[in-house]
């Protein structure tokens, strides 16, 4: 299986998002680089709105993620509740 990843800027906004992603994807690996956090996962990575909302305590629109996203790899499936990165087999 190939790796999918999501790279986010390191800042106050993304900290709870990264925490949420790690909670939802136990197999994800964090790679902290200067001013950037890259999250690698085998084959599939899910970002769930509900988990982020639980951690930040406010309503969250997944589109807000774009503001702090540097890059990503994988096929993208986005709904109001989830962003899923995966590779079509």
């Amino acid at each position, binding site marked *: 299986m190939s790796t999918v990843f999501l790279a986010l800027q390191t800042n*106050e906004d993304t900290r709870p998002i990264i925490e949420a992603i790690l909670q939802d994807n136990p197999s994800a690996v964090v790679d902290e680089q*200067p001013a950037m956090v890259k999250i690698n996962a085998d084959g599939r990575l899910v970002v769930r709105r509900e988990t982020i909302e639980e951690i930040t*305590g*406010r309503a969250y629109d997944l589109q807000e993620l774009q503001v702090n996203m540097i890059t990503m790899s994988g096929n993208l499936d986005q709904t109001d509740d989830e962003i899923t990165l995966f590779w079509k087999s």
Partner: protein
Amino acid sequence: MQIDLRTVTIKPLRQTFDNIARRIGGDKPASRYQEGTLDMQQTANFHYRPTWDPEHDIYDASRSAIKMADWYAFKDPRQFYYGAYTMARAKQQDTAEANFDFVENRGLAATLPESVRDTVLKLLLPLRHVAWGSNMNNASVCAYSYGTGFSQPHIYQAMDQLGIAQYLTRVGLLLGDVESLDEAKRAWMEDDTWQGLRRYVEDSFVIKDPVELFVAQNVALDGLLYPLVYETIVDDVLSSRGGTAVAMLTQFMTDWFAETRKWVDATVKIAAAESPENKEVMARWLSQWRDRSASALLPVARIALGNRSDEVLAEVVQQFNARMAKAGVTL
């Protein structure tokens, strides 16, 4: 000459303050809310006791019958510290201004049916005084309670209530005039309809226990008043009678209540879950103040609901009980 650019990772020696690290379990990056809340209140080296209350230290947990092993167990799920709070409210203020502008510019106030306008002036305007009472009470809780996790949200709540009083004043000036405000003050001071509620508010001014005051004001009174007046009467009953413009003017109150109840519920839950003694005290306060608040609100509900008041209020109380049961206190 050739210059090679390369990135160097500089690992910070520490991620956060030692006291925060001790609380969140290790040296991890902490959120602004955690850094601006945990252990903020002074706990030692109080040289003198206040002359106005020599029984207690200036910050003293024994002012409340609620006992907590750690008062920082209280957390605000909205994670409001000064910055986050002011930014959230500034955004809501913009929305409210836009709503007022919309209603004013399109002359929607003039299109309201006479009966709706009359009900709004009679029902909403005296509530300015209730909101002001809540401002006083929440400032008092903030002053006398223990631990920033508990006290901090109360000063925000106090400011919010001042804002609500101002919005209600503006509604009054938009639908009526300065005399409407005087008339509402007179009704608040003299009319039988309002004396129960006025008594409730004035009695709450002298509650010494900060957690009991939190229960009386933010849980029991607001917990019935907002669903009854804003969610039921304004949003449903008046809207169906052609008063949608009013719902636009009070949108802040509806949104605000939906937001703050998360914090209120979390606070009740944490206090009650601490010990069986706390739970018993909370249950006693809750049922006592809920009953008083329900009977004080009944004549107020009659202004808009007439003979349906008992039924609607019973429904609101039932929802309130369900909400408290969810927070761990069965009433």
